[in-house]
């Protein structure tokens, strides 16, 4: 049997048999080389209560070259692209070792959620948010967990008012700021869009003039 196939099959089986672990690996289609990993968000983090899914592609030269992983679930984290789910983690690149497994790599992703590394960011904007205002970052990360990862507090909240407030938080913005420009007669969605684009948060607020924002809103 193909060595890669044997190894992957064993990894999947081992993971299934390990009842103490909360890591899951599932097939997506009939190919054993395209898988879906999942794990719960770590406790005492903004990701707690969420269920995170990871797309796994096993390259031809696996395990001698690293497995390819990216988040399927949207995650608000400095080392994860908020748009594509791409992950910045050393073991997925040059620190990979063939003795690492899919499971151990997923555990590493889980612990990456505990300990972000904003100095080596994948998503510069999120990293900036993290370093300028940790509390506000946590709020946004928690909202993303709620909305995208099925975290606590998300169930049954379908009122429109609620979702509008969420939008502000998701964008990592202050509600007061959005209200302020909405009061000038601009459409709320557009305000959120512009403020997000200008990164109107944390220390940036004092650097960006209101005129500049209005100018952008008028475009």
């Amino acid at each position: 049997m193909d060595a890669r196939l044997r190894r992957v099959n064993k990894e999947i089986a081992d993971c299934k048999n390990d009842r103490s672990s909360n890591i899951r690996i599932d097939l997506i289609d009939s190919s054993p080389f395209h898988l879906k990993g999942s794990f719960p968000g770590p406790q005492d983090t903004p990701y707690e209560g969420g269920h995170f899914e990871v797309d796994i592609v096993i390259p031809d030269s696996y395990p001698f070259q690293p497995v390819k992983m990216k988040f399927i679930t949207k995650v608000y984290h400095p080392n994860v692209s908020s748009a594509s789910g791409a992950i910045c983690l050393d073991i997925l690149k040059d620190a990979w070792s063939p003795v690492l497994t899919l499971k151990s790599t997923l555990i590493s992703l889980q612990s990456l959620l505990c300990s972000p590394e904003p100095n080596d960011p994948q998503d510069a904007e999120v990293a900036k948010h993290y370093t300028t205002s940790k509390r506000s970052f946590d709020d946004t990360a928690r909202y993303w967990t709620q909305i995208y990862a099925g975290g606590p507090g998300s169930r049954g909240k379908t009122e429109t008012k609620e979702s509008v407030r969420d939008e502000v938080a998701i964008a990592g913005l202050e509600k007061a700021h959005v209200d302020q420009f909405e009061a000038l007669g601009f459409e709320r969605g557009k305000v959120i869009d512009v403020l997000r684009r200008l990164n109107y948060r944390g220390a940036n607020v004092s650097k960006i003039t209101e005129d500049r924002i209005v100018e952008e809103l008028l475009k």
Partner: protein
Amino acid sequence: MSSDYDYSDDDGDYYDEDDMMSTQDDEGSAPSDDDMDMDAFNDDFSVPTRNARKSYEIEHESLSQTAIEKLMAADIEHISGIFGVDEGTASLLLRHMNWNKERLIEKYMDNASAVSVAAGISLPSRSPPSSSAAAPIRSQGSSARSSSVPLGRTTRQRGKPNSRSPTPALMHGSGRSQAAKPEPFVCPICFDDSQTSFLALSCDHSFCAGCWNAYVTTKIREEGEHAIRCMAEECSLVAPDSFVQNVLSEDPPTWGRFQELLVRHFVGSNPNLKYCPYPSCTFTVSCPAASHKSALTTIVPTVQCGAVATPPHKFCFGCPIEADHRPVICGVAKMWLKKCRDDSETANWIKSNTKECSKCMSTIEKNGGCNHMTCKKCKHEFCWVCMGPWSEHGTAWYSCNRFDEKEGVDARDAQSKSRASLERYLHYYNRWANHEQSAKLSVELYSKTEKKMEEMQITSDLTWIEVQFMKKAVDEVEKCRTTLKWTYAMAYYLDKGNEKELFEDNQRDLEKAVEDLSELLESQIDAELIPSLRQKVTDKTVYVSKRNEIMLEDTAKGFLDGRWAWNVTVEGFD
């Protein structure tokens, strides 16, 4: 016979110049080494030969992979002797220090075990107290120096204790096959319990031979890695060559590729050496004269490797811009290309747009490649490039190689000032691009010429060797167009003055000669006139070649003498 030299009036002054005569005298007619079997026709071509090195030629030497391997072996032997270590270890130490022997000796004398650990030869004697302390050591030993990821992170995140063997640090020579493992030992990578052969570096991390082979092959073939680390997580030991060779004993091509990677690393570590950039060529060129960046303000190090190839493997030792950008130095060539890239949009806009007739101001579109414009409305004839009256250009447009700053500004008074500077740029750019284009068309010209040569063999009693004059002429034209192209890049940056004028005189003479020969090569062949055509082409080829010589030689001397002054700041010039 004299009728064969039926030159046009223009050609009359070809041989009037004194410098021409003296150059001709100097040349002699020794056969050049690339003309095999062509003695018969060499008499016609007193083409300059390579007897004495010209100012524009740089001394360099081509080295085969074997020759480089000998240099490496000498360094390894030297270090092995001084440190009293085996050659595999000496090689890893040298590679770790990028083949800087002096630094290696200094560091090794200072702290041999730290250097050995960093080079991936031995394990740290004790597990370091904290992972952060281990990080710098590991990042040095790690081959992946480009990584910006703090290595301590991996340890923390995986939260798994380091399962390093408690064995004290060992210096390892050849990686040896480990004795049979206590049963049942299953390779932790492939989980294949039928494997019987296991290998480990001195760290004792055992894996099956099949996994080692697959891993080493991937590292070499897919990652071009010459420092192959142990497969265990966070183990920083590097496999010595003997171990790699043993693992690849069934796969000589991959072992060969590994040796090539080692040679490339050695060459890359030595500023006197450059690996030939042509695909799958394994030659190295040594050019100590160009090893320092400062030398590149006075020389253009065009070199050629020893591979027997058509065309030969010519490249610039100083930059990756273009194989041969003589006569202009690397820095100016680079500046020019950047300018062309930056201005290409504006230039294209201007080029594709219409201009106003300098007399009646009506709009005129450029049609075709000819710069001779005639206004449809007032019949005013002018030059598209300089906007000056065509009558002042005489019968040839070549005198337009010089951008006349003063008159040009008058003629373009109607145009805006920013446009004037753009026009100045376009003057040089158009000529630069034209020669580049024409040189590229040489493939086409060559096949046309080949056809002509065939025709000649049929319609005349000339032999194959005798019709080679056409090929020779095409080659010369291509060579000279490359020179011309770069002279326009140079002239754009040359400061106004006497020296620039002399430069442009040489440029004009070369350009005129090249265009003349080009035209002749494109002309119809009349069987009866073949002997005279042959004579003409041969004479003109010799002349073109000499004009090129003069252009290159004088410019190169100018750099050596510090004669060239620039209208911008050029790196390395005061």
